[in-house]
């Protein structure tokens, strides 16, 4: 009821203001009937009152104003001339409206009077029957209720008889109560006051500094008082800009009701904490997002009444709004007890809309799944309804909230409902910030992005900041924290940092990435008043604005995300986190991109292996390395793991070992072997195109990866060099018990990319198969004609003849029809269509190219099936 009262008060204040103006405007209009602007203004006033009445359910007031509006609209459209009669009728309408308003104010209802006479006159005027009115001049006061038709709704508890008199008595004084206790103030005036208070605070700070230097009790006392008053004044002025969130929520019951009715649903809206106050600018900014979320809840969240009952819930859905202050922020929660959002549906939608691949969808956590909803190009609405088809997605909601420094989070449980949590700062005008110094200038860093502060003293600093491919990083509790030197990002004069001294690192969060900002000095944290930068400086993404410090000087406010992007900590691709990442890897897959592990060994700066082949990356202290005969080993997972020195295999001089030793672990079943390298550089994703074949042992060739020439390590050869028995042993293990066949199975590998041929061949051979190669379907058929092959492993997309055609041809050839064909595809997951087409063509299986385990298992199965088939054939013969 409180909210209703507030709405009512607002309506009264606004209507009194407008209607008060109408008297005068109508009189002026009579003199200048052609004043179109004035006429429009009058029309708008009446129209507004009428509209609000509809909302507040004041049917009498609505009826009267509606009739008046009809006439005004005729006038406005030039359909008729303004006459004295019309003006009189209008003025009478104004009086009637005033009377009803004061009744509403005093009694809460619009009373019993129905204004039949006035309505008849207005109706007649609207019909153009000028003379129909009984009295041309001011009509006598309305005859009270005796003649009116039965009231459509009973009036509130007010006894009707007393109404007319009560009205007379309260008329003039009643609205003083509401209307005169508030005044409207231009927001720009408040802004100006805010600025002045800011100035005052600065002056006060300076005075307080003086006070500290003097020993004058009087002066100290006075400045202390000044201090208190200024603080209180600041709080008071800030409060003038604050508005209860109820001002935004007020609009929601109507929106929700209308929507519920049009969807045939029943929804009750509940609110808690409507008096939670927020800065005006923020109130404005969250209006649309909140409305959108509420609409979504009703449209998609809450089920139809029968469905609800079937689930054992009450037929009426519940939309619950809650707001509260917490930790200097305002939390807003919008929850419904509807159907919830099934994560599966979100995934399906995201896959459908091409936001992620099915493979990626499988790996997402529930929270990540819900985050998909906030991506551009996502809409959960199964069908576009009149409500949801407004072109505003949740991505817009997120963008708008983030614009004001807020965050959005969504939680949902099937059949229990969905809750959206929004956190926003109390005000944009004043924020807590950390002040740092760099190259003699001060910078403010908004506290919301701040995670922690680190200080590395002299030697520790020199030792613990390492370089990963030229980028400085610091190991923070086991994680690599990329470091950004503020001095460098901002191109500040003065060259290197404080020189030899301590290193101050401000750990910041930009999106989901953490990074360390290296500054000269960390000063203090304080509340700062945010001021925008001029147009000429808006384009610099590194700054969010400026502020005035205690000494009156200006300091720039750093934009953490902007800084991160500028220094490439958050790349364009990562900016959108999950999805963009997935988008990229999806693209990568399609373009034959590969995830590669880059590392350094001996004289070779840039080597790589496909990450898919790598089991683990490990670090061993040098002291753990042992010798077993001529071999180097390490105890690893209660086994002895043989180590191979890559530098040795490549024939380059081995550099002295670092401590700890970096090892890339490869595994095959339970067997493991470790490759000792000097340093892991990075994991990159790139299209691999072998530019030149290699003549060196242990290297497949070189390719340009990440813009630099990188050598591709021949894993198979390197491992064979370290453990010649690896391949056969591994094959033996894989062949399993009872197979007993010594002959290694022959696989024909058909693949147009030389690199993948190399990779797949290595994998197959490591698993104990003998491999022959063909670059396309035509060549494959030739090879099949030459040798009896156990299994054909083919790529799908190839020049001259693709995998489908190859399989089809083989099915038609009597000798080859029994040879199983397994296809591998670079796509994230074999598409259903592709599977079907493959099945028709005769693929025995279809696997994902990078899924080593899956591919090997499948091929093993096929090979075993072939063997059994042969045995059966033998038996039958």
């Amino acid at each position, binding site marked *: 009821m409180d909210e209703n009262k507030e709405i009512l008060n607002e309506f009264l204040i606004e209507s009194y203001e407008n209607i008060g103006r109408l008297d005068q405007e109508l009189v002026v209009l009579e003199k200048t009937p052609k004043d179109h602007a004035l006429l429009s203004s009058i029309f708008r006033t009446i129209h507004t009152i009428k509209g609000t009445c509809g909302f507040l359910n004041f049917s009498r007031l609505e009826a009267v104003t509606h009739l008046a509006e009809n006439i005004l609209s005729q006038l406005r459209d030039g359909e008729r001339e303004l006459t004295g009669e019309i003006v009189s009728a209008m003025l009478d309408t104004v009086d009637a409206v005033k009377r009803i308003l004061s009744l509403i104010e005093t009694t809460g209802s619009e009373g019993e009077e129905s204004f039949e006479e006035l309505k008849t006159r207005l109706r007649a005027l609207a019909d153009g029957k000028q003379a129909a009115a009984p009295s041309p001049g001011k009509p006598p006061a309305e005859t009270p209720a005796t003649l009116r038709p039965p009231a459509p709704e009973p009036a509130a508890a007010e006894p009707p008889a007393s109404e007319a008199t009560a009205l007379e008595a309260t008329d003039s004084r009643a609205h003083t109560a509401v209307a005169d206790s508030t005044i409207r103030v231009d927001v720009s005036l408040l802004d100006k006051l805010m600025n002045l208070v800011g*100035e005052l605070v600065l002056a006060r700070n300076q005075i307080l500094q003086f006070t500290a230097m003097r020993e004058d009790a009087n002066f100290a006392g006075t400045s202390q008082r000044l201090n208190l008053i200024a603080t209180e004044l600041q709080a008071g002025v800030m409060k003038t800009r604050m508005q209860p969130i109820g001002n935004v929520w007020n609009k929601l019951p109507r929106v929700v009701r209308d929507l519920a009715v049009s969807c045939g649903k029943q929804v009750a809206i509940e609110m808690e904490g409507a008096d939670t106050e927020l800065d005006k600018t923020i109130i404005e900014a969250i209006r649309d997002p909140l409305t959108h979320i509420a609409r979504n809840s009703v449209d998609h969240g809450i089920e139809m009444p029968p469905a609800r009952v079937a689930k054992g819930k009450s037929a009426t859905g519940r939309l619950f709004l809650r707001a509260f202050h917490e930790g200097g922020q305002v939390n807003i929660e919008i929850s419904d007890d509807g159907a919830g959002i099934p994560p599966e549906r979100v995934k399906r939608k995201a896959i459908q809309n091409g936001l992620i691949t099915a493979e990626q969808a499988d790996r997402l956590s529930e929270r990540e799944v819900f985050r998909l909803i906030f991506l551009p190009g996502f809409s959960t609405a199964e069908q576009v309804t009149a409500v949801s088809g407004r072109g505003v997605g949740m991505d817009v909601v997120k963008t708008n909230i983030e614009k004001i420094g807020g965050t959005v989070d969504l939680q949902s449980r099937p059949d229990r409902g969905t809750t959206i949590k929004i956190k926003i700062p109390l005000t944009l005008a004043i924020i807590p910030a950390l002040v740092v110094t760099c190259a003699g200038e001060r910078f403010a860093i908004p506290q919301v992005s701040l995670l922690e502060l680190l200080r590395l003293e002299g030697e520790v600093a020199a030792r613990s900041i390492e370089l990963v491919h030229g980028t400085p990083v610091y190991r923070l509790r086991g994680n690599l924290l990329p470091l950004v030197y503020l001095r460098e990002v901002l*191109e500040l004069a003065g060259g290197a940092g404080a020189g030899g001294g301590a290193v101050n690192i401000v750990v910041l969060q930009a999106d989901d990435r953490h990074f360390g900002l290296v500054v000269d000095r960390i000063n203090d944290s304080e509340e700062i008043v945010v001021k925008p930068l*001029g*147009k000429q400086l808006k*384009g610099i993404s590194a700054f969010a604005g*400026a502020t005035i410090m205690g000494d009156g000087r*200006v300091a*720039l406010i750093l934009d953490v995300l902007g800084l991160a992007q500028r220094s490439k900590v958050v790349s364009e691709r990562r900016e959108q986190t999950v999805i963009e990442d997935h988008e990229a890897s999806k693209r990568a897959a399609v373009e034959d991109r590969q995830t590669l592990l880059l590392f350094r060994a001996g004289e070779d700066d840039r080597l790589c292996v496909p990450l898919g082949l790598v089991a683990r990356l490990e670090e061993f202290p040098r002291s753990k390395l042992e010798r077993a005969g001529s071999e180097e080993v390490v105890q690893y997972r209660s086994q002895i793991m043989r180590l191979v020195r890559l530098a040795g295999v490549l024939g380059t001089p081995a550099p002295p070992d670092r401590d700890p030793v970096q090892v890339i672990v490869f595994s095959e079943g339970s067997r493991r072997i470790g490759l000792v390298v000097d340093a892991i550089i990075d994991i990159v994703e790139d299209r691999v195109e072998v530019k030149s074949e290699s003549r060196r042992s242990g290297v497949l060739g070189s390719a340009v990866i990440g813009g630099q020439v990188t050598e591709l390590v021949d894993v198979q050869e390197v491992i064979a060099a370290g453990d010649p028995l690896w391949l056969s042993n591994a094959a033996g293990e894989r062949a399993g018990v009872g197979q007993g066949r010594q002959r290694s199975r022959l696989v024909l590998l058909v693949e147009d990319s030389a690199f993948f041929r190399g990779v797949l061949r290595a994998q197959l051979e490591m698993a104990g198969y003998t491999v022959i190669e063909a670059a396309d379907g035509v060549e494959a058929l030739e090879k099949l004609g030459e040798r009896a092959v156990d299994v054909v492993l083919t790529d799908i997309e190839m020049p001259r003849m693709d995998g489908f055609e190859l399989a089809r041809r083989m099915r038609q050839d009597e000798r080859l029809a029994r040879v199983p064909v397994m296809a591998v595809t670079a796509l994230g997951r074999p598409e259903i269509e592709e599977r079907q087409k493959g099945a028709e063509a005769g693929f025995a299986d279809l696997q994902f190219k990078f899924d080593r385990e899956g591919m090997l298992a499948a091929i093993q199965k096929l090979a075993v099936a072939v063997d059994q088939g042969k045995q059966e054939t033998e038996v039958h013969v």
Partner: protein
Amino acid sequence: MSDTVAEASQSRQYTTFSLDKLFFGVETVKVQEVLRYQPTTPVPLAPGVVSGLINLRGQIVTAVDLRRRLGFPERPAGQLPLNVVVRGDDGAVSLLVDGIDDVVEITPELFESPPDTVPEKVREMIRGVYKLEGRLLLVLASEKILQFESQES
């Protein structure tokens, strides 16, 4: 050129100042105030013509070095600039000048367009020239002076 002549004939009061021995003016109606030297906070990554930010009674104002903007040599070390704060479309901007002179009133007859020999880049920032007794007054087109955007590399 005709509209600039027309404009010039409308406003005839100019706040004048010196810059590298030359005599400049901007329409007084556009000048918010004139201030002595103010400490400035440099803005990294900003265009070179931006000298920094100053605190103008709680308002943060961008200071544009007029010498740099017009391609003049740098102000000699130790010489402090003064601020002519002009109102732009997007709030106030301070122009840093060498010295402040009077507000002068001039008849439009003395007005002439800037000679074509003035480099084009500078010419578009100069609305015209008044031929005064013994010296020339160069009238700045303040809106053009403020027309530069920050571009990030």
